[in-house]
């Protein structure tokens, strides 16, 4: 789930090589500014970014939104939210997206689920990239002894049957949002670390690193000031691509019952509950599923556009 998508990022360009077709003659514009300009011209990226921004707003304003709609995430509407047979009610004027088997409003639960997905997904992705970059940087830069230890460590983590392990781990320590973030980060960082290590090994051989060493710069200074800026482009791409991976990871854990524990809503545990009712209540399954798929799609497309903007030479994962 995580490694396969990331591996495509591995061959990001070497920023030292002059790139044809890039507005080089523009005065003093940093590579970042150029990338930003390209990104803003990309219609797919703008649409996806707008959608993600909307999601963020929804997550932040979940409480006022729920108040305005009139139900809370755990309110069980016994009057309009459940049929006489105790079955969910389809979309209608009272409940825009219908209700679940306990008469709870699905729209409101999706809104609160957005918060869970974004908080867990983004924090886990950022944490994973942070750990991955630090470990990868150390493995790649600090020489063969450190490298052999850290590279082996990454191999071990990558060899973990991660979902199985995550399930076992969560059972032992007890499920919570924080544990979920840690577990996802723990099983995602090694893929990033391996790629960062490879890039660092290449950058380490460049003459400007030698130049810095001949000036007397210490390891830490070189890693932070000379190597890190050259890793920023792939790192930004990893973050945008790891976020959807982490969101799906979270939903999967919740679906399997080891993530967010009901009655707190998350897209994963809503779908899990809906599994028993899909024959009578399609909306129960379809709306949380659609929220999950659309969010993943938006992040994937945005990540692809970001990669495109940072390096116009590589082919897009998804052609326009």
């Amino acid at each position, binding site marked *: 789930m995580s490694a396969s998508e990331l591996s495509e990022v591995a061959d990001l360009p070497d920023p030292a090589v002059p790139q044809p077709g890039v507005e080089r003659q523009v005065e*003093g514009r940093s590579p970042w500014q150029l990338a930003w300009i390209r990104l803003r011209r990309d219609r797919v990226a703008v649409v996806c970014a707008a959608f993600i921004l909307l999601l963020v707003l929804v997550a932040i304003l979940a409480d006022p939104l729920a108040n305005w709609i009139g139900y809370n995430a755990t309110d069980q509407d016994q009057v309009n939210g459940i049929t006489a047979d105790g079955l969910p009610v389809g979309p209608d004027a009272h409940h825009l997206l219908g209700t679940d088997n306990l008469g709870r409003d699905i729209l409101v639960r999706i809104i609160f689920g957005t918060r869970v997905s974004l908080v867990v997904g983004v924090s886990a992705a950022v944490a994973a990239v942070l750990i991955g970059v630090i470990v990868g940087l150390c493995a790649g830069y600090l020489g063969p002894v450190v490298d052999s230890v850290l590279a082996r460590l990454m191999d071990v983590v990558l060899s973990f049957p991660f979902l199985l392990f995550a399930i076992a781990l969560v059972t032992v320590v007890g499920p919570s949002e924080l544990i979920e973030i840690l577990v996802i980060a723990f099983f995602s960082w090694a893929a990033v670390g391996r790629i960062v290590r490879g890039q660092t090994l290449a950058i380490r051989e460049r003459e400007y690193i030698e130049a810095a060493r001949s000036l007397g710069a210490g390891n830490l200074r070189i890693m932070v000031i000379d190597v890190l800026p050259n890793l920023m482009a792939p790192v930004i791409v990893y973050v945008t691509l790891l976020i959807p991976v982490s969101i799906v990871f979270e939903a999967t854990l919740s679906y399997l019952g080891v993530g967010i524990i009901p009655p707190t809503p998350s897209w994963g545990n809503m779908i899990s509950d809906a599994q028993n009712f899909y024959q009578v209540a399609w909306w129960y399954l379809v709306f949380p599923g659609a929220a999950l798929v659309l969010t993943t799609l938006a992040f994937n497309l945005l990540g692809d556009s970001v990669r495109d903007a940072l390096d116009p030479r590589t082919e897009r994962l998804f052609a326009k």
Partner: protein
Amino acid sequence: MTKPDPTPSIQRRPSDDDVLLTLRGVVKHYPIKHGIIFKTEIGRVRAVDGVELTVRRGETLGLVGETGCGKSTLARCITRLFPLTAGSIVFDGQDISRLSRRELRPYRRQVQMIFQDPYGSLNPRRRIGSIIGDPFAIHGVADGAERKRRVQELMELVGLNPEHYNRFPADFSGGQRQRIGVARALALRPKLIVCDEPVSALDVSIQAQIINLLEGLQDEFNLTYVFIAHDLSVVEHVSDRVAVMYLGKIVELADRDQLYGQPRHPYTNALLLAGSIADPDRARARRRIILTGDVPSPVDPPSGCRFHPRCPKAQQLCFDTEPQLQPEPGDPVEHATACHFPVAPGEDLTVLTPGIGSAVDQPTEG
């Protein structure tokens, strides 16, 4: 070539005893390791294998040789970019060959390096103001506005527009980038600058500009250069003395005029002959006559004199015994050659065919 010379006579004539840098038996081997868990060494790349050299204060010492002869490794030994395998380097009276990272810091201020690749030696993600200011930042010399002022001074000194302080390396041409590299090397006013093929990646017209810049700076700041190149004409132009390197060893060392006028080592002869012919096709033809075969591998260098498999004058002695780098009879003391059968003035090497290389090697190979 006339150049401005503010303090004539004394500075331009480096004296024999005013030595800035001494290399004694400098050796740099790279081990080749193999094994499953416990790695055993199965061989070594003898990149630099026993180099004796002195560099005098204020002079330019040229270092020439073919690709892979170890000259760049030697440069990185001098700047202590990696530890020596054996031997010692004495700079300004202090042995720096065994110093730790921390102890090296003062040395780093006094010895700087200019690199070959003007694209690779500047970090593409950093603004050039911060690149040139690196030496100040690393050694805590100047901060903030003061640093910026000094960086802009340096930029002006090397012929860059100080207003381009905030640009990125990608905004500059190759020659301008090399000026940035020069400014960075000059920042801490070092005594010695090791130039590792500083112009070989540049267009010929721009080469002259950079060389003139380096010469002007030498006069202005009383710099000492170790100037590495494979282009003999560039070395002839800039050097006071020239050392010729072959497979990790110095094979000939002399004043520039001596070396170019009266080369004694067959290898130097071959290089000069190949380089002095304007027509490249003829040059290649001539060169093939003398320098037969490829450069042998530094992993397993030939016995005795390392040049013997390619040398037209080689005899059994060259196969058995390694020649010492010493003045040949009739040469000035300054002119040292490591050869058993040095080339006599006027001798034509092209009529000889390499004898020992094929004759002696074949039985041992079987």
